[in-house]
Structure formats: structure tokens, C-alpha cells
């Protein structure tokens, strides 16, 4: 049963990933990316990370992808004749060769490491969200705060970048003196 689910999620995810890269219309690419993200959330549930699966659906599929779709609709792009680079076949073969080498290296190397204490039974006893929360606000508190500052910087940067540019020619100096 687990194998069946894994094969389903992996196959559909991979096909959606290839479609994201290969489809011509950018909106179709975004929808294929949505399929990929949802199936990866399914894999996260299989790996005992229910909280992360929910975050994936809410943040990735709900927020980031909507942002992409909004920008695509703002730009109103037409589907182009040439959506790949001119030298794309060379890069494609280079990518496939790299993938082969990566797979051989990964599958031949031994996996292992320090076994922690958060076994499946412990996580299921306390609940996955509880386990994540306890870890995040004890061991990873500093990182959590740093991510908060990073997001604040990103918000400010996005606002400054996407602001409508002020026309500097007819800017009255009287504006600055008004209270």
C-alpha cells in the first residue's frame, strides 16, 4: 500500500515537474507546478510530517503560486514561438548526464548518521504539530527570529521595487515644507 502511494505521488510529481519545465504557456507551467506541490505534500504526509504538508499547501500552493499567477496575469504575456534557448538541446543532454552521475553517486553511497530521539512513536504520541512547535521554539528560536527579519526585509524590498516610480521632473519642493 505504501509502495502504491509512493509510486503514485512520485510519478505524478515527476511528470508535473517535467511539464512545468516543458510547457509553452507560462500559466500552464504554473498549474503544473501546483500539481507538483500538492503531490509533494502527499509525500510529506507519508514521511510523517503532516505539519510540513499543511505548510506546503498553504504557503506554497496558496500564497506563492497565487503570486506567480497574479504577476502572469498582470503582464498578459502572449505564448511565444520560441520558449526555449537556442542551445537548449546541449544543455538538456548536459542535465541528463549530470543526473545519471548524481544518481549513481547517491545510490552507491551509504546513508546513515546519528539516530535521534524523535521516533515515529514519540511524534505520533505528542502530535506532529506539537513536536514541530516544541523544537522550533526551543532549539531553533534564533533561526526563527532571523527568518522573521528576512521576511520583513523581503517585504520592504518588494514594496520599494514594485512601487510606481515618482516622476522627478514635476516634483514641487513645496511638498516637503507642508506639515
Amino acid at each position: 500500500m505504501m509502495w502504491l502511494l509512493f509510486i503514485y505521488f512520485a510519478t505524478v510529481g515527476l511528470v508535473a515537474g517535467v511539464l512545468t519545465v516543458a510547457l509553452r504557456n507560462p500559466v500552464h507551467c504554473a498549474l503544473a507546478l501546483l500539481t507538483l506541490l500538492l503531490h509533494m505534500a502527499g509525500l510529506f504526509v507519508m514521511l510523517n510530517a503532516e505539519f510540513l504538508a499543511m505548510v506546503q499547501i498553504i504557503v506554497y500552493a496558496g500564497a506563492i503560486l497565487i503570486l506567480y499567477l497574479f504577476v502572469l496575469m498582470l503582464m498578459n504575456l502572449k505564448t511565444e514561438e520560441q520558449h526555449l534557448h537556442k542551445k537548449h538541446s546541449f544543455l538538456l543532454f548536459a542535465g541528463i548526464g549530470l543526473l545519471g552521475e548524481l544518481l549513481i553517486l547517491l545510490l552507491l553511497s551509504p546513508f546513515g548518521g546519528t539516530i535521534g530521539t524523535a521516533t515515529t512513536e514519540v511524534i505520533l504520541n505528542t502530535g506532529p504539530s506539537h513536536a514541530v512547535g516544541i523544537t522550533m521554539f526551543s532549539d531553533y528560536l534564533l533561526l526563527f527570529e532571523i527568518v522573521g527579519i528576512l521576511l520583513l526585509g523581503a517585504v520592504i524590498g518588494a514594496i520599494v521595487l514594485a512601487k510606481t516610480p515618482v516622476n522627478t521632473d514635476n516634483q514641487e519642493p513645496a511638498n516637503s515644507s507642508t506639515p
Partner: protein
Amino acid sequence: MIPLSAYVALSAILFMTGLVGVLIRRNFIVVLMSVEIMLNAANINLVAFSHYLNSMAGQMSALFIIAVAAAEAALGLAIIIVIFRRKMATNVDQINILKW
């Protein structure tokens, strides 16, 4: 029980799909989407190792990766909106002078 190597192989294939997408696509927004595929492949790897090694560290890293991906998407899209407003171009081979 699914072996860890199945997840690692899946994430490697997805990562290379994203990398090929970054290399061969001309549209900047689709290049950003390919970067999201690569970040997702890294997430699968981290969560799989976190599950098989009984540790929460991988899930934490995956959460922070999602936060960084959100920031990256917002900034990348803001940059492409600015470029599109000035130049009407979203293809990466038309955006090659860094300043205009």
C-alpha cells in the same frame, strides 16, 4: 517499507528537472518556477532523512526553506515587474545589460 534511496533518487531527478528548466527556459517567471522545483526537491530530501534518522532537524530546515522560498518569489517577481515596466521584456536573453 520504502527505502530511503527511493526518496533520494526522486529528489535527485526533481532537482535536475529544475536545473534543466533554469538552463533552457527563456521566460524569467518560468525560470523562477524551476527554482521552486529545485527547492522542493531539497525539501523532500530533508524530510526523508529526518524521518529515517528519527530527528526533527530536517523538518525544521524544510520549514525555513519554505520561508526563504516565499521571500525569493516575492523579490524575484518584484524585480521582473520593474524590468517589464521599463523594457516590456520577460525573456532572460533580452535582459543582459544590468543597467539602463
